[in-house]
């Protein structure tokens, strides 16, 4: 049984979006995800972090905290900010809904998180901040690296 956790705190600036993806992706890799599962998690993290930067802090900076827990075959992630919060969470979750249409925001952030992860919860208090919680469970199959190794060993044995 795998049990692990981490907590990351960083400035809410756009150049840290890539850092957050890599950090969480790297932590998640301990569960031997497929490339697709890994991409799913990194994309969802990117959406949540971007929301905190753009909407939570209106691009004016702040702090984002990411916490991850690994348990068996699942990762549970929270992305938290102390920004303006969300007035109407149900409305925010609607595809294409955005409070910043002029900025070429597609309004798809929560839709992507919901589609790519196995669970999504949003807790927000206007004026206090927002916490997005997500879960991803890796499939029972072994990861692609293990498959590739086993394939290579089979080929060696056959030759």
């Amino acid at each position: 049984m795998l049990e692990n956790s981490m907590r990351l705190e960083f400035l809410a600036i756009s150049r840290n979006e890539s850092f957050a993806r890599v950090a969480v992706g790297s932590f998640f890799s301990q569960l031997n995800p497929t490339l697709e599962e890994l991409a799913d998690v990194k994309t969802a993290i990117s959406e949540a972090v971007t929301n905190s930067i753009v909407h939570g802090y209106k691009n004016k900076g702040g702090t984002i905290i990411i916490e991850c827990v690994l348990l068996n075959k699942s990762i549970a992630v929270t992305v938290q900010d102390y920004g303006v919060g969300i007035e109407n969470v149900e409305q925010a979750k609607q595809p294409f809904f955005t409070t910043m249409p002029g900025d070429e925001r597609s309004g798809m952030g929560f839709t992507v998180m919901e589609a790519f992860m196995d669970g999504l919860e949003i807790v927000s208090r206007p004026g206090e901040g927002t916490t997005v919680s997500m879960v991803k469970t890796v499939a029972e199959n072994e990861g692609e690296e293990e498959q590739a190794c086993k394939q290579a060993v089979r080929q060696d044995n056959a030759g």
Partner: protein
Amino acid sequence: MKLNTKRQGQVLVAQISGELDHHTAPALAEHMDALLQDKTIRVLQLDLKNLTFMDSSGIGVILGRYKRLRNRGGRICVTNENKAISKIFQISGLYQVVEKIS
């Protein structure tokens, strides 16, 4: 994120490399808009062979360029996107407005 372009008649082939997210999107939008000032460009072909990551910020950039081109009868097509990026295109409905070419 890098943008390399090549003109083929009415088509502007735009090869986007690296990662397209909220951090890199504005520079891409600006660069593309400058190129699209040339009204003889009718088709914007996005070659995403070397695009390793895209999130919904990329959707926003592409939709923005689509609207501009559509206003003058142009269109966008996309090629060589990887599985993860294809998934983003699919769930956002981007394939309804951007033609996929193999």
